[in-house]
């Protein structure tokens, strides 16, 4: 391979990995919430953007180090989730067919947050860029990559691994998975279903926030990223199978690489068309998704 091709290959690979792991995080957050409390959170993109913008305020406006800012952003998602759950989400826990109510509710939240963001951040800047987590550049062969992006990639993969370990081995994680599979049986076996709802809502949103702050650390962004992310995360969840974290991660990676490859050879609109087309096909012919149990 010539040097130019080698660079193109490595840059596509690194973009694919970073985007893929961030897509996986957000889609995992959405699918955890849908799998347990049956809430298809259309506001996930706005939550993602909220984390990114909050990170921008902490680092650029207040001068806090990006590493501390990232921890603060993910931390603040927990009380926010709790507040939202107590105010709105709890009311529907016993409503049959609550997914459509939740869906519309989250579209309302989307509209509110979109309005608030364009009223505030939209007036301050068009494009947002956070300071890097770490500086410097590493060469992989002829290909230069910012250490900052490598760090973001490592963190994203570490969080995904942690999520898997939590769901697989920890007591809370096992209770969550039991509720995913059969909430009545889980309740009979002594799992506190309502407590697991709170837990998964907070966990899912924390993962979405993590995706948002990591994206903001790796790339500059604008306010339109929210809607793109929301639709992408839904597409990943539907194709991977609602409730399946493994499906979210696998399809998230596929989407990340698709995005990276397509943006080299064609316009991003083509990538969006292909996601949405794939999602429609799955919705119509296999609504349980590819990785459903």
């Amino acid at each position, binding site marked *: 391979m010539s040097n130019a091709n080698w660079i193109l290959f490595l840059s596509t690979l690194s973009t694919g990995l970073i985007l893929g792991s961030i897509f996986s995080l957000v889609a995992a957050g959405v699918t955890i919430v849908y799998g347990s409390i049956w809430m*298809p959170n*259309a506001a996930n993109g706005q939550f993602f953007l909220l984390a990114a913008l909050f990170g921008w305020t902490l680092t650029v406006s207040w001068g806090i180090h990006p590493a501390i800012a990232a921890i603060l952003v993910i931390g603040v998602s927990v009380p926010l989730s709790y507040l939202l759950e107590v105010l*709105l989400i709890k*009311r529907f826990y016993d*409503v*049959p*067919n609550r*997914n*459509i*109510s939740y*869906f*519309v*509710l989250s*579209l*309302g*939240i*989307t*509209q*509110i*947050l*979109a*309005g*608030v963001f*364009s*009223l505030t951040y*939209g007036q301050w800047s068009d494009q947002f860029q956070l300071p890097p987590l770490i500086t410097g550049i590493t060469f992989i062969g002829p290909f230069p990559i910012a250490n900052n992006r490598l760090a973001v990639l490592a963190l994203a993969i570490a969080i995904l691994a942690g999520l898997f370990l939590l769901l697989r081995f920890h007591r809370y994680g096992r209770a969550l998975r039991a509720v995913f599979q059969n909430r009545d049986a889980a309740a009979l076996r002594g799992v506190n279903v309502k407590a697991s709802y709170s837990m998964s809502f907070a966990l899912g949103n924390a993962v979405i926030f993590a995706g948002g702050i990591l994206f903001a650390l790796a790339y500059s962004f604008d306010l339109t990223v929210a809607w793109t992310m929301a*639709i992408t995360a*839904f*597409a990943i969840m*539907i194709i991977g199978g609602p409730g399946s974290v493994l499906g979210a991660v696998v399809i998230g990676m596929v989407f990340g690489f698709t995005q990276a490859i397509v943006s080299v050879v064609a316009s991003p*609109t083509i990538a*969006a*068309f292909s996601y*949405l*087309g794939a*999602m*429609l096909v799955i*919705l*119509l012919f296999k*609504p349980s998704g590819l990785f459903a149990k």
Partner: protein
Amino acid sequence: MTDSSSTTSLSSDWKKIAGPLGAFTILAFAIPALLSGNRYLAFVAGITLIHIVWTSGMNLLYGYTGLMPLMFAGIAGISAYFAVDLTASGWSFWVALPVGALAASIAGTILGLPSLRLKGFYFTLCSLVIQTVITLGFVYFANLTNGDTGISQIPLPAAPGSGTISAPAFDLILAAAAVIGVVVLIAITRSALGKRLIAIREDDELAEMLGINVTRYKMTAFFIGSLFAGVGGALYAPYIGFISPRSFDVLISMNIWLMVAFGGRGTIWGPVAGAVILVPLSFLLQEYYTVKDVIYGLLIIAVIVLMPGGIASGLKRTTRATEPVAAGAAEQRGAK
């Protein structure tokens, strides 16, 4: 709820609605005429009338058939672009309007096909995806739509004779469209078609077992509902004078849905009231354009949490206190 007392004959049904319908007709024509001294206020009234056409179509689909099509604005946009492009290429607007509306109807019927397989949240999500694809399409096919920039300085339609029609005259056409829209909706809900759509809304499997051709009636509902969307879209473009993909994006679909849900789905006048309240509100807030989004978002949450039947059901509950249980049950099922 509307079908629970269908023992009365058809003609007395019409007599019952004649009063409100007469009042609505007079107001629809009189208000733009009275406001014609102030072009801005007349314009707000005109936009409200277009939204009444839209909410009537959305009400047929969401209120009476129980489907929540979030691609509604996209369908209106298809008609708007058709009408504008055809008019620009030399067609008369009055031919382009029905052609555009028909194109929207056909598109809406095809895009409604997933409703045969998908229900509730899954259909709504599917319609959201379709809406997003339509919006991307409007941006992508820039030779027809001028992309993100949009098409501006769309002229008002030509008047018979020469020159273009005046804005106050176009207001009256909008009033006629809104009145015709409401009359068609009333006619449908009073007909066998309307009863069958309500049966499908309440339980489509049961309706199928009772011998109702669910496929055919859902497609009919989409055809008619999309026709409303298309007529509104084709009238909207020359009235505003500017269209872009953002004029017909998912937020607009949600706004039209909100007007129906806030006013009271499955009632004739609830969605009309929703449009009359919410459209002028957005103009009042025009200086703080994004405040409108926040208020609409809060209203969506309020509708879902506090008043699943909209303001019309609130009124009904106080006046007809005898059947709150039935109303509650209908709401639960309708929320599917």
